[in-house]
């Protein structure tokens, strides 16, 4: 029985941030990915994009200094860094779809071993569908990374041979950053980048029910 410690949310955010290079243009999805902004290593200049027309997005303003004309994709107040710019929605999505963003980090319900992404709908009957910018982001950035727990609360793997939830995009995810391991999605399936100390390779494969190339 292997003994290991899961990465906490903050540790996971730090792990993602380590791989963001100096000078990168990055879009961080709503939810857990927004934590990554707090962990960009000192000395690296990273420019954050927000789908609603911001490049050079800064952190949340101090209490009382909120300006609700300046918000992020999650509709939370933010700030603009010196050198930042505003632009309209079509330009903002042209930045994504034109392949100008280096990295986008998204949450997911499921990712297939070849990088199919499902993160916008659980397809439940009677649910009201909402997609927002997820499909544009998933296929637009030079690299799409997913940040998520590998297992559901019920212990089922969210990395699957084939997504059962409605797809967001096909073969668009390059890497999965998770509480247990960092994985690359390739046309041939999963490849291990790293894993937490003490977790055996075979144990990880068993948790996911999928082969992982070393």
């Amino acid at each position, binding site marked *: 029985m292997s003994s290991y410690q899961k990465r906490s949310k903050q540790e996971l955010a730090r792990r993602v941030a380590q791989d963001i290079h100096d000078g990168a243009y990055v879009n961080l999805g709503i939810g857990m990915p927004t934590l990554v902004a707090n962990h960009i290593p000192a000395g690296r200049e990273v420019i954050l994009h927000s789908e609603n*027309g911001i490049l050079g997005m800064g952190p949340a303003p101090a209490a009382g200094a909120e300006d609700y004309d300046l918000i992020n994709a999650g509709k939370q107040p933010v700030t603009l860094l010196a050198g930042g710019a505003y632009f309209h929605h079509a330009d903002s999505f*042209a930045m994504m779809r034109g392949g100008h963003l280096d990295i986008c980090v998204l949450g997911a319900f499921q990712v297939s071993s070849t990088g199919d992404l499902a993160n916008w709908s659980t397809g439940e009957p009677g649910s*009201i569908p909402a997609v927002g910018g997820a499909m544009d982001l998933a296929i637009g950035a030079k690299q799409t990374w997913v940040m998520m727990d590998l297992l559901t609360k019920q212990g089922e793997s969210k990395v699957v041979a084939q997504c059962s939830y*409605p797809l967001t995009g096909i073969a668009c995810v390059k890497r999965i950053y998770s509480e247990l391991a960092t994985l690359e999605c390739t046309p041939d399936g999963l490849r291990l980048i790293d894993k937490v100390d003490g977790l055996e390779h075979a144990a990880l494969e068993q948790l996911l029910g999928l082969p992982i190339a070393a």
Partner: protein
Amino acid sequence: MINKIALSVADALAGVKDGSTVLIGGFGTAGIPAELIDGLIAQGAKDLTVVNNNAGNGEAGLAALLKAGRVRKIICSFPRQADSQVFDALYRSGRIELELVPQGNLAERIRAAGAGIGAFFCPTAYGTELAQGKETREINGRHYVLEYPIHGDVALIKAERGDRWGNLTYRMSARNFGPVMATAARHTVATVHEIVELGALDPEAIVTPGIHVSKIVRIDHVATQAGGIKISAKSA
């Protein structure tokens, strides 16, 4: 002499007909033309198709227009929110039609309408249920979906400053859909907080040239608050 300054919201919206497609700017709390939506409710046009990123929040603004039974169809990217109860109830009871469009497609289809583009191939949504039934094509090894423009009869947008020729500037992320919607409608109405003399807007900084604007209406300067509620700057 060209003078696009309308004396009132009612004046600017006088010609809106039943059955119109109405493009409404705004994203979250920013850039919502709240006074124009209220004006449209008062104006009375019905059987509308509304294009907006969302499907209304709370009970005011777009939600109130929906609640008044004036909207037949909504085209948007993200209808479901914590406070979208008015839309949710209409949708679940089959009293409103929804066309769900990925946000980038929404913006680009509006842009295409304004630019006279007949249709365009776009990679977004290829292989997903939102592309079902749509024409696709492989171009240079990549798969694309054919998307058609969204034309508006009317666009309602919120800008910051304007002049009598209809030139507009915006404020921060309140710009969002305004500039593309302005190009895509036959009749574009913009609210501004300040009307200035011709030449007072820096020509290098004008975002929407007046050719795209039919009417501008000055409204009191208000600060947008959390949840999109607006209060006057004096009491803010």
